[in-house]
């Protein structure tokens, strides 16, 4: 139980760090590369991570409680 809890906290913190890193990357891309495609790709990647790990979209098609 404790291990599961610690894993859950660890996972969300890792995802947060990845999202923070991607935000920094998109800022740098806009400053040095100015690529719209790359910026939109990063945005979709960030949105995918949030929808999957923070919003738990997979719970919609699983017989799962909270």
């Amino acid at each position: 139980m404790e291990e599961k809890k610690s894993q859950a906290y660890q996972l969300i913190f890792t995802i947060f760090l990845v999202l923070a890193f991607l935000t920094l990357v998109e800022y740098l891309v806009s400053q040095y590369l100015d690529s719209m495609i790359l910026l939109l790709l990063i945005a979709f990647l960030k949105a995918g991570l949030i929808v999957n790990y923070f919003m738990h979209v997979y719970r919609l098609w699983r017989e799962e409680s909270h």
Partner: protein
Amino acid sequence: MSAAATHHDQAHDHADEHGHAHVPTYLETLRANRLGLWLFCISEVFLFVALIVVRFALWGNTRPELDQALGLATTSVLLISSYFMVRAEVAIAHGDRDKFLNSLLVTFVLGVLFLVGVVGFEWGLFGITFGDHELLKPTDGAFGAVFFGMTGIHALHVVSGLFLILMVYINGRRGGYSTERHWGVEACAIYWHYVDVVWVFFYPILYLIGTPVH
């Protein structure tokens, strides 16, 4: 057929062979609630996509000169608030009541900070500017209309999210949620992350994509 008779027939449809009405279990209700909330989120996608289409139609490959530091700061604040929201959900799911309440409170404060950043500073309500660029006004043609339209609609969602967080916090303090039953927390978290996802697209579209026009 009268309305009462129709209602009776519908009720009969849900009854089993012994005539007992089917009472949905918590899990069944939870699944229906989740589906409903996600359908609501999807319906809102049309609104935000329409705003994004308007932005590209009117601005093309240009954008107004906005404060980059402020844009990055507000984006970071909303992202951190999303982390604390999911932390609150994990906490209640594992019985960490104090961590749940503290995380919710931090989420709320960060949400208010985001609003202060966008509405207070970027909209110029405080009359304070950073750097040497002029503040955008709603009357500044297509730039002003699109920027205030997009950030305004998003800010409205942030405000409603803050109300939800406050309601969940008050319910949480009263012991309204348990490890097994906390749909209110999950719903509030989904909505708050949704507001964050919208900003994930609005940030590059408003602040980063296109050539700044002075």
